[in-house]
């Protein structure tokens, strides 16, 4: 691991460790309550609108429906929130703290700074999410949930990719907009919109056409948990962070460090000189 990557992870270690511990505990807890949930709601019929939240799962009391509704319906949004927090901090946070100036005054290109930080934060985020795998390895047999661990792992992987979409979105906005605060606000707004478009779109036909705009639509765990898999969904979740990273690189190379000016407001000459 490079010193830059170590430094980036060091700054977010508490955030990632906290998220990992919470998710580890929640995964085991959700699995552990499943038997009592199943017996309590065996004859319970969900309202038609709510059934849409189960996605491909047919029943709330089935293991797939239960995990989709009680874990995968909202934990990925939590990870996306963590991704936004660390994504806006990577460049925008260092810029507002003033440490980016001493970093970029060293003989290192902005692309390398961005690449090493992005890879380090992506790896850290994926590792934090991956702590749910051993939790489910303990929890699935504990709660008598009859789902293969590898299916849960694939669902977690898709959720991790969705969180990388928000990580790269936050990094792009923090290099594009004037301040970290603006980037955090817009990223958080995008997260809330993406979450509600996906969840409400499942029940409200007029919103349904907008669901493909949400990363959570493509990472829908119920598809994998019920035995399906779409390479197309995987491709979208891999391509989107890569495209956002390319946009981040474009904006960061043109950014006027410490000037508090959005890249969008730079005159053409400054943008051109950065591209030389």
């Amino acid at each position, binding site marked *: 691991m490079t010193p830059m990557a170590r430094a980036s992870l060091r700054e977010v270690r508490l955030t990632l460790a906290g998220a990992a511990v919470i998710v580890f505990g929640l995964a085991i807890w959700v699995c552990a309550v499943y038997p009592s949930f199943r017996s309590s709601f065996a004859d319970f019929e969900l309202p038609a609108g709510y059934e849409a939240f189960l996605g491909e799962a047919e029943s709330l009391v089935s293991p797939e429906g239960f995990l989709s509704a009680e874990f995968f319906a909202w934990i990925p949004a939590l990870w996306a929130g963590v991704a936004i927090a660390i994504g806006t901090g990577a460049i925008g946070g260092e810029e507002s703290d*003033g440490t980016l100036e001493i970093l970029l005054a060293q003989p290192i290109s902005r692309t390398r700074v961005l690449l090493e930080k992005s890879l380090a934060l992506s790896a850290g985020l994926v590792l934090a999410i991956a702590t749910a795998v051993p939790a489910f390895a303990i929890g699935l047999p504990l709660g008598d949930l009859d789902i293969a661990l590898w299916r849960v792992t694939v669902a977690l992987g898709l959720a991790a990719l969705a969180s990388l979409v928000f990580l790269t979105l936050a990094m792009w906005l923090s290099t594009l907009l004037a301040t970290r605060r603006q980037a955090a606000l817009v990223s958080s707004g995008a997260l809330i919109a993406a979450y509600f478009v996906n969840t409400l779109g499942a029940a409200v036909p007029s919103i349904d056409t907008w669901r493909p705009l949400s990363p959570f639509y493509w990472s829908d765990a119920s598809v994998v948990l019920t035995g399906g898999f779409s390479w197309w969904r995987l491709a979208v979740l891999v391509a989107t962070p890569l495209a956002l990273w390319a946009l981040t690189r474009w904006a960061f190379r043109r950014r006027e460090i*410490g*000037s508090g000016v959005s890249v969008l407001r730079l005159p053409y000459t*400054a943008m051109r000189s*950065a591209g030389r």
Partner: protein
Amino acid sequence: MREGAQRAGRTGAPAIRIIDLTKDYGATRAVDGLRLQVDPGEIMGFLGPNGAGKSTTIRILLDLIRPTAGTAEVLGHDCQADGVTARELAGYLPGDLRLYESWTGAEIVRFVASLRRSPVPVSEVAELVARLDLDLSRRSGEYSKGNRQKLGLLLALAHRPEVLILDEPTSGLDPIRQRTVWELLRERAQDGAAVLLSSHVMSEVETVCDRVAILRRGRLLRTGTIQELLGMTPARLSITFEGARPELENVEGVSALTTNGQSLNLAFVGDPNDLIRRLAASRVASITVRPPRLDDVVLQLYEQENLA
């Protein structure tokens, strides 16, 4: 002479070359057609009031911001097109140094050193730590302003750069460490390094710098050696006579003449022989001469610019 100066000698490239540099922030022109050159082995003072364009110029040299027009080079390397090489050759101390507060000084030094292409000599770090009297085991967030400044100087100097770009290098330091920093800068210059030193402390610039560039409102008002600049500014004389005062109004170089009883106050610049002859014709009881100082020069230039 060190490799940097030898290399600059071979290539013929100045340590810093700024050609027609302009930087606009919207409708505000922060730097306006600046032309400046700093040669290897030279310490150049970079003077001007707040908003003169000093920091903007320095930030362009480090490719933190981009010029609207013109170019800036470090040892022949364009600071934008070949910025990584330019920064490899430079050491930088910002005016408002911010550090990773939870890291110790040693961790910060190791991290910054790891970003350089060539290794930073441990002996150099040890020598600077000793001379600056710096404790690297403490977290930088616990450092006083002076200790943060020492750490910033260490980061700028430790890799023995061929070009030093320093913004207020002695800010927050006690007088003893200020002298240490001045000694360090002179030693580096003797070894062939070029220093661009931005400062508001005129006595420091007068003590350390070989040449001075004075900016205002983004434009270069004047460059010259300290002696050249002092030579164009009048000395202040207060003379008390016993008996009649001589007539000095028509003496070449005399200005701002005021009288107070038997005393005269005047400003003088130029060849003093005519003035001395006139004074010798009278009986002088006392004479006080205050030689010109750099702040007089700077203030005079600002006044001239205001009039213009």
